[in-house]
């Protein structure tokens, strides 16, 4: 278990070499696979970039794609800093969507207020769903990974049930009614800037959350405690921090980021919530985003951008070079593989490296 903790810990801010090296190697692996499949990787990657950056509309849509990736990434990263792996972002996102959809459809409120309340309820739903995992871990000893995976499915089917019984669109049968226009968070000026891409205030909110993430971690007492638990649970306990309570609070806040992602999808992008049999990929992609970003605020921002380019640009690759969409997933997976491999190597060698580094620093300090 200690090795596992050390492994997780090794992902946190590994510097710049690891992520950039991993990205280069990831693209290389993708290219080799394409070459083996008889495709021209240069053409394919060019098409990918063309799709992602080719027109203002495409850039806008790529940023729309980036919004949930950034938020689920922050969600995973936040838990990570307290030494927890939040694999339940998918479920928390679904709950966030559900909360926002319920308020958006059922509660009549004036404009702006409606949107704010809908967002808030979405965030709260996600946060509570996250804290449930925290509670199970802290007071019932359930491993957070297992609890979260199971709760993901509970959330999905629960949401489907609620949509079907409370807010189903009688014509469509497969989705909820539209939320009231007073609850929408469309940002017309942003859309206009990007040729009517579906960019909303949600994107700006997500960017704001990068700052909120940093502020929570480094400027609040709560963040201090959370980082302490993540960096040294025994020392945190010694310092009088109640670990169990901390786990619940951490998962609550982590779930809040994912809940916001879900709420933005409903209020800012689609306007309704779909009955679905599988999770959107954002939840699990959030883990990749957080890991590549080293669980830091800015790192997560950059890696969300990269993953958005990859997943939004994939369609262009298929269109122009006939390369299957999945190749871009392969590139993502390969990047993550290299990040994880480096974390694994470092966690296995932490002891020796740490000792060596300490040795050299020690002698420096002694000399001064």
């Amino acid at each position, binding site marked *: 278990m200690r090795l596992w903790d050390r492994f997780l810990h090794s992902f946190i801010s590994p510097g710049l070499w690891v992520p950039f090296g991993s990205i280069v190697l990831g693209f290389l692996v993708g290219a080799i696979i394409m070459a083996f499949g008889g495709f021209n990787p240069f053409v394919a990657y060019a098409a990918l970039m063309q799709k992602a950056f080719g027109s203002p509309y495409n850039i806008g849509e790529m940023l729309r794609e980036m919004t949930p990736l950034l938020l689920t990434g922050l969600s995973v990263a936040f838990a990570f800093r307290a030494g927890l792996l939040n694999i339940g972002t998918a479920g928390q996102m679904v709950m966030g969507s559900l909360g926002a959809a319920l308020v958006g459809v059922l509660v009549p409120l004036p404009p702006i207020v409606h949107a704010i309340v809908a967002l808030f309820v979405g965030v709260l739903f996600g946060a509570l769903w996250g804290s449930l995992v925290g509670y199970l871990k802290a007071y019932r000893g359930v491993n957070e990974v297992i609890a979260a995976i199971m709760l993901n499915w509970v959330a999905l089917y629960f949401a489907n049930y609620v949509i079907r019984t409370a807010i189903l669109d009688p014509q469509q049968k497969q989705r909820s009614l539209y939320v009231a226009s007073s609850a929408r968070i469309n940002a017309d000026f942003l859309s206009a800037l990007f040729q009517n891409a579906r960019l909303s205030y949600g994107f700006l909110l997500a960017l704001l959350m990068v700052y909120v993430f940093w502020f929570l971690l480094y400027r609040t007492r709560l963040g201090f405690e959370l980082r302490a638990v993540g960096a040294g649970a025994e020392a945190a*306990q010694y310092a009088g921090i109640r670990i169990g309570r901390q786990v619940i609070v951490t998962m609550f806040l982590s779930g809040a980021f994912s809940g916001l992602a879900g709420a933005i999808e409903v209020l800012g992008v689609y306007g309704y919530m779909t009955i679905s049999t599988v999770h959107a990929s954002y939840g699990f992609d959030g883990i990749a985003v957080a890991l590549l970003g080293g669980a830091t605020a800015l790192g997560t921002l950059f890696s969300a951008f990269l993953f958005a380019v990859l997943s939004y640009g994939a369609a262009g690759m298929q269109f122009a070079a006939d390369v299957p969409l999945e190749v871009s997933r392969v590139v993502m997976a390969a990047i993550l593989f290299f990040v994880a491999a480096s974390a694994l190597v470092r966690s296995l060698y932490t002891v020796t490296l740490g000792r060596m580094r300490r040795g050299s620093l020690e002698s420096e300090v*002694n000399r*001064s």
Partner: protein
Amino acid sequence: MKPKSDQAGVYVSGTTHGEKPGESFQGTTGGTEHEPIVRMVEITKRFGEFVANDRISLDLYRGEIHALLGENGAGKTTLMNVLFGYYQPDGGKIFMNGHEVVIKGPDMAHALGIGMVHQHFKLVDRFTVTENIILGAEPRAGFTIDRSRAREIVERLAGQYGLYVDPDRRIEEITIGAGQRVEILKMLYRGADVLILDEPTAVLTPQEVHELLNILRSLAAQGKAILLITHKLKEILAVADRVTIIRRGRLVGTLPVRETDAATLAEMMVGRRVIFNLDKAPFQPGRVMLTVRDVKEARSGADALKGVSFSIRAGEIYGIAGVDGNGQSALIEALTGLRRIASGEVLLEDKPIHNANPRTVFESGVGHIPEDRHRRGLILDFPLYENLVLNTYYQSPYTVRGLIQPLAMQKQAERLIQAFDVRASHLNVPARALSGGNQQKAIIARELSRRPKLLIAAQPTRGLDVGAIEAVHREILKFRDAGGAVLLISFELDEILALSDRIGVMYEGRLVGEVLPHQTSEEALGLMMAGQTARGVKEA
């Protein structure tokens, strides 16, 4: 500058590079062969920028006990790991019996007849003594292990060198001292002629140390070459023929033990004069600060508390002596809110503090220097300044309305670093980058800055160099002289004897005796540490 040995077996060592030029020690090797069995010549080992061994030369003869002396971090273990094949040297050569060898790994070291007894034993608890000794080199009878022959060999070896062990007991049932004898037998079984022992006495009671030293003498008398890694001068003077001293990765010198004394060795090891005696003000006990009454835990085991009672007065240092694993850790945790007790009580002045939250305990006036400074005492990846407010971070001025105030934390850290002479290049360096001594000084600074009534100091000098040990002892005594109560838990008897005003001896979760330091001896304490209750010892 190269050490050389001439045909008459007289050893001349040119010494370090620039430190003591021209000085040399001459010594006979006392009836050994002409050729050293091991010669390490100008061994250099670097880790990145850091030079752990800088052109260190050392030679070792059959029948010799050769001590390798140095402070923690001086490079002793690195040098031995080079000899044992764990590390490849970046420079220098190793000769065995006059032939150059490249030792590629521990297997090869074994094959060359080099055996190493590590500080932490590498034994399988569930296996018997015999099974552990033969493990990996079992005598076979067809496809099965020839157990009777194995047992015979073990008994023969044990008899030959006076290493008494019961070949059929499991490791989990035998004492630590016996475990160490098994480790030595394991090496002898593999045909080792060179035995490296890494801090072998760290875990032993004084009686066991005595036994071990006798064993080493007997091994040397029968032609084995022994390298003893240690920082304990007393043992070197008692048993070694020659001693090689290294400091900060460099050779200081090699000299015959009978031509030296403790003060000289200490000075060579540390690089300056060392004062052995602490200035201790007379004992002026005040009122009772801590009362521990019949504290028991729900679990069982040698390290569980089974009814511990004692009290400490203001201005008193109460030392707890004992061998590792006899309930000391449980006691510390029970007193600091980290462990629940099933019965009994702990009173700070008149206020019960057992089964309370750690924060409640230290808010009521308990300072705690934890046993494990890396896991409990510090968050190694946090900057030094955050570590210096690790248990007050939530109080004003470090937190105001839920927001932490790095500037206020840094100001406090600045003060503490000044007052307690913590050496760090910057307030922002992670605690990991500090030396052990400075890490410990940081913890002490943090704990004493809260002006506690009681200071619990657990293994406060473990792994520190001589200078840092002095500093830590001075702070503890200063606190005591200012009227603080101190609970000192240490495995180092010297430390307990030097600092304590009263000593309790812990064995299997109980205090088996309480003595005054000037009315006892290491031997008497050692007997109690091995479980024999004190006879004729007055309750203080």
